[in-house]
């Protein structure tokens, strides 16, 4: 469904994503894991069509990402990105204006669940509230692919439970969810597959159930193996 081939992004002399080739399939929730600066966000931005690769390609359903893929891919950045003059209602209106798959009804329901008022200005929101708003407006789309960059950042424990529930409720046979985070334990409760990235290179993509059965390790254990002091096995 979402495929990158030899995808590379360089910023000056630094390589943020280094020849990453992988294919993510629908019907799964992927956890994209790696410490800060490992290239998760850069890969996602290229897959969302916001950033141009230095080399390589990224495609959605066989087509290079771009105008058409943006209709079907819902991307949530880790940073707040709403126009400062907008209210929460304006944000919903904006998404309704531009995305055919956006449901205002679902947006309002998610706002209620996350205890956000439509009249509030986005510039007055706390970081936790802004994070919840990002989740609400992204999940109010009926997209084929959801890419959520650090969805649990800046959110308290109870709200995290709520967000986790919302994310799981979006999972379906015809959808792909990709979540990046460095909160490994949080991700283990949500994802069924994991993408491990280190220094911009893909280490491996694993089915978590299969990993538990064959290797006898959890996602957190494997994370420690890869990013701790143990030797890294390249995929």
């Amino acid at each position: 469904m979402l495929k990158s081939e030899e995808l590379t992004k360089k910023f000056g002399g630094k390589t943020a994503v280094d020849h990453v080739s992988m294919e993510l399939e629908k019907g799964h929730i992927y956890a994209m894991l790696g410490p800060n600066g490992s290239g998760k966000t850069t890969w996602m931005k290229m897959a969302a069509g916001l950033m141009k690769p230095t080399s390589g390609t990224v495609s959605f359903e066989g087509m290079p990402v771009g105008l058409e893929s943006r209709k079907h891919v819902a991307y949530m950045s880790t940073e707040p990105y709403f126009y400062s003059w907008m209210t929460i209602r304006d944000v919903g209106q904006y998404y309704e204006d531009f995305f055919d798959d956006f449901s205002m009804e679902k947006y309002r329901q998610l706002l209620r669940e996350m205890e956000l008022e439509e009249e509030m200005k986005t510039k007055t929101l706390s970081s936790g509230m802004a994070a919840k708003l990002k989740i609400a407006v992204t999940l109010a789309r009926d997209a084929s692919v959801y890419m959520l960059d650090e969805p649990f950042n800046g959110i308290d424990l109870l709200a995290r439970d709520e967000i986790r529930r919302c994310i799981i409720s979006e999972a379906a046979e015809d959808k792909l969810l990709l979540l990046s985070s460095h909160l490994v334990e949080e991700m283990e409760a949500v994802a069924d597959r994991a993408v491990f990235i280190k220094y911009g290179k893909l280490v491996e993509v694993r089915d978590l159930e299969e990993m538990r059965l064959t290797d006898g390790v959890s996602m957190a254990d494997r994370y420690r193996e890869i990013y701790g002091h143990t030797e890294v096995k390249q995929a």
Partner: protein
Amino acid sequence: MTKLLKYEIKKTWLTKLIVLGITGVAELAFLLGLCLKDSSAGEKIIPVSILTLVMIAFGGVMVIGIQSVLTLHRDMNTKQGYMLFMTPRSSYQIVGAKMLENGISIALSGVFFFALGFLDITLMFARYGELAELWKRIRELLDMFRVEVPITPAGIGAVIFASLASWLATVTIAYLADIISSALLNGKKFNGILTFVLFIALNILMNYMLRALPSGQGITQLVVIGVGSLVFSVIMYIASSILMERYLSV
């Protein structure tokens, strides 16, 4: 495109409202001065308010253009740009909406300030009864600068059209320079200086091309300059959209 246009208007309405507010205050002062024409206060208020109105008219049109460039810059260089660039809209539509919004705003503000100026001059000389003398003075002023344009509705219209179209072309050059800066020179040494040099060079090129056009004199010359500027704006629009589509990362 209409939805993009709607949000471009929303992004810039506050500045326009401020310009309109200042214009309103200056206009009220002018009208107050007219009412107090025989007092010393009236004599002081009228010239100050006229000067203010003239400055707002020129400054307002300039500010609208500059703000459009700043809005584009913010969209390309801050996280707020995700709102724009993650929508299923092409760069042609995005730049087109920005340019259209700016063109409409410049045209409307030009017409507005011209109409206001015309109204104020008429009011002033209806009050003082020296309208013929005013036109004579304006003609003398234009002759001093060797402006060979008749003071007729067509002549004045041609001056406004050429001025606004030239300003729109300058703004579109700034668009292209900013897109090159954000898409191709981002993070590179001397980005700011190179962008500025590019902006100046494109302006010189435009002026050279406009002068090279067979234009004649008077109104014809102004119309040719205006149309040439609009054609140049379209070229800048196409170049900006292509570069944005191929190279811009936000």
